[in-house]
């Protein structure tokens, strides 16, 4: 593993946010009382919002990596709405919002403008939800990759259009219920075989750095942000952020759900440079996909009222998807202590 620190043994391993037994520089940014809190308190995200958490993790890490010289460009979406109800703002960094689909293009312009002013030392980060990334913003994003503009684009993937009422996006998983993929008929929920795997699409552009991460492994996420900021050119970070509202999970289970997504193999966590995978985070304790699905009401139609699997055919297909990820990225080969 290159992105994460070498796993050493101490009381809580490498897995907690901080640790009194570690040197301060080995702890996470989030363990630091002087962290930037780039999204400050009082924002209007739902209880247990994964995106609010993921965005703070990413931006606090990016602020440390750039010594505070950072501009953020935001697409339309939950993140924009819950942080900036006029006239209040939760942002503690220079922040621009324009349209839903053009965050990548605006970020390209900000980077070009800074460079023209001789302020190439100020870095640019663009961020969007999965809708603003894989659907509406895809054209601008692909162009940004193709031109290799010096922007880190971060997608906070909660797998549907949550802000407008949980409509299906190109990142919605198969079989998931959304407002536009109702759990009715012989094939309830979102169809199989559709949707976009944005991280591999980004890799196909051959850009410097592509990585996936979740809110459940902070050390890994921060290491990837830090690594991304070492490159000058187009970079892409895809962060899985569970949405208690849209997924129908308990607000207290946000991190647990993200963890089960990776431990089941449904969401592979890896990084790639110049189009090739360089490292994958191994699964520590593998679980069957139903452990992940059962915590979410958007998959409730797959289970009976006792929590037993009611649609083994569909669960089986999802398990096959997880198995393919495990084989493809070697998620079980890389044993760690």
């Amino acid at each position, binding site marked *: 593993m290159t992105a994460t620190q070498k*796993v050493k*043994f*101490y*009381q*809580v*391993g*490498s*897995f*907690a*946010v*901080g*640790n*009194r*037994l570690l040197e301060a520089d080995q*702890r*996470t940014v*989030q*363990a630091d*009382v002087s962290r930037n*809190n780039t*999204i*400050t*308190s*009082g*924002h*209007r*995200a739902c*209880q*247990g*919002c*994964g995106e*609010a*958490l993921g965005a*703070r993790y990413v931006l606090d890490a990016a602020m440390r990596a750039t010594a505070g010289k950072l501009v953020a460009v935001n697409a339309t979406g939950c993140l924009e709405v819950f*942080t900036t109800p*006029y*006239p*209040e*703002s*939760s942002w503690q960094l220079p922040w621009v919002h324009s349209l839903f689909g053009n965050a990548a293009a605006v970020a390209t312009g900000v980077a070009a403008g800074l460079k023209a002013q001789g302020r190439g030392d100020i870095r640019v980060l663009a961020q969007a939800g999965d809708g603003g990334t894989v659907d509406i913003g895809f054209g601008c994003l692909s162009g940004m990759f193709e031109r290799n503009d010096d922007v880190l684009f971060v997608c906070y993937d909660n797998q549907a259009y949550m802000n407008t009422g949980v409509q299906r996006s190109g990142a919605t998983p198969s079989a998931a219920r959304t407002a536009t993929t109702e759990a009715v008929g012989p094939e309830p929920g979102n169809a199989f075989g559709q949707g976009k795997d944005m991280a591999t699409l980004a890799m196909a552009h051959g850009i410097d750095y592509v990585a996936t991460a979740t809110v459940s492994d*902070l050390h890994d996420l921060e290491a990837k942000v830090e690594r991304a900021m070492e490159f000058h050119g187009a970079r892409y970070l895809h962060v899985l952020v569970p949405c*208690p509202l849209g997924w129908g999970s*308990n*607000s*207290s*289970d*946000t*991190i*647990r759900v993200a*963890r089960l997504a990776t431990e089941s193999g449904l969401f592979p966590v890896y990084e790639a440079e110049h189009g090739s995978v360089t490292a994958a985070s191994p699964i*520590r*304790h593998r679980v069957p996909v139903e452990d992940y699905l059962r915590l979410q009401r958007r998959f409730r139609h797959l289970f009976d009222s006792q929590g037993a699997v009611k649609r083994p055919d569909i669960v089986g297909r999802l398990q096959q998807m997880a198995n393919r990820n495990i084989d493809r990225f070697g998620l079980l080969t890389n044993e760690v*202590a």
Partner: protein
Amino acid sequence: MDKPFAITLDVGTSLANKTGSWRVDRPVYLDRMPPCNDGCPAGENIQGWLYYVEEGDYEQAWRRLVEDNPMPAIMGRVCYHPCETACNRAKLDEAVGINAVERFLGDQAIEHGWSFGFVAPPSDKHVLVIGSGPAGLSAAYHLRRMGHAVTIYEAGWALGGMMRFGIPKYRLPRAVLDAEIERICALGVEVELGHKVTDVPEEMRTGGFDAVFIAVGAQLGKRAYLPAGDSAHVIDAVSLLHSMEGIEPPSLGRRVAIYGGGDTAMDAARTAKRLGATDAVVVYRRTREKMPAHDIEVEEAVEEGVLMKWLSTIADVDFDKGRIVIEKMALDETGFPQPTGEFEELDADCVVLALGQDSDLALLESMPEVVVADGSVQVGPDLMTGRPGVFAGGDVLPVDRTVTTAVGNGKKAARAIDAWLRGERLEVPARHELANFELLNTWYYADAPRTERARLEVARRTSTFDEIVQGLDETNALFEARRCMSCGNCFECDNCFGVCPDNAVVKLGFGSRYRFEYDYCKGCGICVSECPCGAIVMEPELA
């Protein structure tokens, strides 16, 4: 108004929006009872002292430990560690080797000569402790640190009680015993050896004592009727183990039968082996499962070549022919052994009786208000007998007869005596709720198997009285301590501080833990779910 087009309000921070008003449940920090502490008969705060070991601060860890138990080096050798049986880590991989770390701390203290620190100012009260076993020494230690003058009357010629005259040297080297007793005496405990108390009220009057703690133990070996009667070939285990402290080791013969199934029987059998017996056979009337001896004792005895005869009683002895007759038993439906009428012979030059022990309670005879039932002294919840100011603890009570329980009794008695001397009765505070495994989020703990202590090879074990179990060194003691999950007690991992989507946790700095900022906490509960050790709880918000 000098604002841009269509702008009418100044830009403000979202801090003006107190999202705490959304909350219906609030997270609250709490300390729960770790299972190890809950299971410790000596009342040690194990999680508390392991916390310091994890940092490598062994002296502080030892000081935390001896607040409850003044004999860690002894404990680390003879305790049957119910703490490890209770340890939550066993459900993850294996229990933390608490006993091994305790011994490491105890040995460090002896090596570095650490002494007990604080002793409270003199109270002008004088307490008599009768007996210097683990209960008596523990009580003397705690009473002394509370500022009371303490005198121990010991009937024997040396301090330590059953720790010296019952526990074999291969389990507890006498240098260790002496060092820890010496340190207790150095607090200013007065000792009179060879002073057998026969009349407690009379001793209190003549000595001017304000209270007394009776901890005379149980050292009368129970006898069983053997048809050939008592002879030179029948010895009780207590006397055998006691005589091992003398100059001349007793002679048992080549083939020794040990009658009984407790830890003392195992000690006697293993001692017989070391004294040169070729055969040491334990004869026990029930099965291995029913045997009161601890598993580790039985395992080690078998490793050393001790033979076991389950479901057997001694029906007859014929030492002239060098044999005994055994009757086979069978368990009835209630689990009680019944004779079968089947007999067999077993070669034996002598029989060691290990059938349990009774207390010599003659010293209570002048106090009819002190109730004795079934050979045990009856006490209240604060260990006070029917006579005010007279307390009792250790093996004279109907309790588990282990060193650890005795030490715990000693501590509790000291607290009760201290309260009584101040004109109060000991109030035992309610225990914190137990930190169950289900309350932990073990994801955060790295997988780490335990470190086993090396053991002396069997060949050397059966020929010498060298200590069997070796100690941990610093690196593996540290490793072992760091396997502790700190169940129910915050260890400042920063998880709550990190995982709050609303930045509603304030980190107060090292040693001061955290505080919730309820103005912004929305009550999502992620901090509770992600707390590794179960030190946060959600409570309903009161309307």
